[in-house]
Structure formats: structure tokens, C-alpha cells
């Protein structure tokens, strides 16, 4: 798909909605379409966080394995969600597994490409960080509530 075609898709995702000033072109330059079959892993814990996924269709499960407990899904992500925050912070490693729950289509952003462009253009970097920050904060809030185990028998 052409970069112009990808620009439209990236702009349609809420993460980059309204992105202007030539930034959209720069971001879309790091983008490609990807597709995962149900059950296929997008990435595994410990691997280099080299991509950011903007989910378009389908859903994915974010999982952590614990000894004796198997795989636990702690979050799912669906259309218009973002998977991949580890690309922002060194050493850029995934800290969980992600598996497609059903056939899933997404835009993959090359993390090194985007980081390089953000480093070269602080205005772009600031704009990108502003857009990722709400997702980071929302995840933190959700994690806090999950840790409280609100529906446990003690509550």
C-alpha cells in the first residue's frame, strides 16, 4: 500500500487523529499493514519492542505466564486500541506476550524508525509523546484497579 493510503489509515486511528503539520506523513512513513491469524503471537516477553500496533480489526490478548498458573490474560485490545508502549523506554523490551484472539488486522509502526524521527524533530517527538501519554495513564489507572481486586470476596 502507498504511503498516502497508509496516511489515511493512520489518521483514522484515534491515537493520531488530527495529527497535522506534516507529522502524519512522517509517522505513516514508518507504517505498514499487518495481519495475524487467531492464535498467532504478535510478540513474546523479552523480545525487542521493535513495533507499535494500532489495532484496526479483531482483538488481541496481552498475557503473562506465571509458574503453576499458566497464561493469564490481563488485558485485551480491540479496534482503535494501541498495543506497544515498551518502544518508548530503554531497553525497549516487551514485558508480556500478545496473542491474536481472532483474525486481527493492524497497522504496525516501526519503533526504531519512529524513535529516530522523534529524536531528529523534537516537535514531532513531543506531539507523539502527548498522544501516547493518555494511553500510558489509562493503563496505569486500570492496573491500579485490577490490583485492588475489587470483586474479590474481601470487598
Amino acid at each position, binding site marked *: 500500500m502507498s504511503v498516502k493510503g497508509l496516511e489515511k489509515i493512520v489518521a483514522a486511528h484515534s491515537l493520531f487523529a488530527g495529527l497535522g503539520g506534516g507529522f502524519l506523513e512522517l509517522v505513516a512513513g514508518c507504517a505498514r499493514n499487518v495481519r495475524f491469524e487467531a492464535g498467532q503471537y504478535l510478540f513474546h516477553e523479552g523480545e525487542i519492542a521493535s513495533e507499535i500496533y494500532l489495532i484496526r480489526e479483531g482483538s488481541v490478548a496481552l498475557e503473562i505466564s506465571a509458574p503453576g498458573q499458566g497464561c493469564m*490474560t490481563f488485558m485485551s485490545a480491540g479496534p482503535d486500541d494501541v498495543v506497544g508502549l515498551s518502544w518508548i523506554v530503554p531497553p525497549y523490551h516487551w514485558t508480556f506476550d500478545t496473542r491474536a484472539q481472532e483474525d486481527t488486522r493492524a497497522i504496525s509502526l516501526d519503533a526504531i524508525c519512529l524513535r529516530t524521527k522523534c529524536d531528529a524533530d523534537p516537535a514531532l517527538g513531543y506531539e507523539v509523546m502527548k498522544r501516547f501519554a493518555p494511553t500510558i495513564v489509562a493503563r496505569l489507572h486500570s492496573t491500579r484497579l485490577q490490583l485492588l481486586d475489587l*470483586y474479590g470476596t474481601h470487598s
Partner: protein
Amino acid sequence: MAHIPDPHLSDPMVPVLARVTNRVEEIPGVVTFEINAPQWQGFAPGQFNMLSLFGVGEIPISISGPSFDSTTIIHTIRDVGAVSGAMATLEPGAMLGMRGPYGTAWPVEQARGRDVVVVAGGLGLAPVRPILYHLITNRANFGRVTLLYGARSPDEILFRNELSKWRAQLDMSVEVTVDHADATWRGHVGVVTTLFKGADFDPAKTTAFVCGPEIMMRFGANALTDAGVAPEDIHLSMERNMQCAIGLCGHCQIGPFFVCKDGPVFNWAQMKPLMAIKEL
């Protein structure tokens, strides 16, 4: 305003003998009972009864059945303490004490012509189930109807068959999430507020009903106001240590309110400032 029934006997502190007529184990530790009580004249969605086992104790339990059935009383009880644990073992034919109904009702009729969002967490689905029965029975009177339900895990989803049935009706949106799951679960995982993103309602014309653990209600109500729903249009059911149920003993007091008498249903404009006070 809809009629809110008063306790069905002349002395609201005296229980009547009620009989368990049916028992369904919903999930481990959670049981739904059908109960028959003499002179029962019905309830309004949101009201509760005081149920007692002689020699064990008395607890407040919301009524979880349809309000249009004025003969059968339905309660869903979770085994979390001495009284509820003993009640959870009751079989059909068993007797228990009952007094009620008490408290204020969900203002369901205020939602007529508006979109309705019901947000429930854990066992909080039981006190809002009478609302859902009312909405479904009177579906044409309301705009878009959305139920957002959060449970701890797939094994702890309450009223699973009814959730499936409501979702299949196609004239209301039913979204379920769990806090964590194993790999066999194909549904949504995350706290209940994460379901708001996909919910379709007009915040300016929405009435919301929220029920669950207090922290969940706080975050749920805040997420609704963030979405543009007015605090006066967000209603929640408070849980406190209710003992007399008629506003005399003061055990359930929160600020200027007795939860048993002035509540348990309040709106967010009333409760938000009080929930910010840790000592309450």
C-alpha cells in the same frame, strides 16, 4: 414519580416468617433464592429487604428479581460472612425472617425517552437486574440501552444465561469484561471503565445506573462525567452497615444521609463530595 412501597407490616422492625421456595447456585458462593412472604405487596427496583436467620443474625440484601412480579421475592446472596454464609446453605422449604422493602428506588422512570447506561461490577449486577427487567419489558419507552458489566474472571460472571439472552435480543448492547482470564477466554479483559470507549450513547440525554464496589462506582461515575453525563443523571446504590433499615440507629450514616432511608440509591451530585471524605 413511581410509587415506592413501604415495609409491608405495621411495625417495620418486626420480621415476618418467609419460606424459601427455590434455590439456584449462580456461581460458587453466590446463590439466588425465591422467597414467599405473607402480605408482600411488591417493591420498586433498588429497594432491599432485611433478611434474618434466628440465632445467627440479620443482613440487608437488595432485591434482584422483577418488580412486576408482586408475589415472589428474589434475592441473590454471596457467602462472605457468618449470616450470608448460613443463608447460602438454605434449601427450598427453609424459613427465614424478612422485613422490608426499604429504601429509595432507582429512578427508572426519569430515564424515559433517554439513553440508559447500566454499569455493574461483580455482585453489583444483582441490584440493577430489576432495572434491566423494567427496561426490557418497557423497551419502547427508552432510547439506546447499554449494559456494561465487569467481573473478576470468566468463572465469576453472574447471570451468564440472562446476559447471553439480553445480548441476543439485539435491541440493547451488552458488553462484558473480566479483570483477568486464562487463554480460553475470547472476550474483553480489563476493568469495566475500559468498556466506555465502545459504548454508544448521547451523554446529554443519558441516565446512568451504577452498582458495584464503591471504588468501582467512583471510577465509573467519573468516567461517565468525563464522557459528558451530568452528575444528577448518574445514580448509584450505596452499601453501608445497615442495621435498623429505618433511619434510627445511625450505623449507615454517610454525611447528612442515612443510606437505609435516604438511599441506598443516590445521585453522583450527592455522593461525589461525600466519597471524597476518607473518614466517611
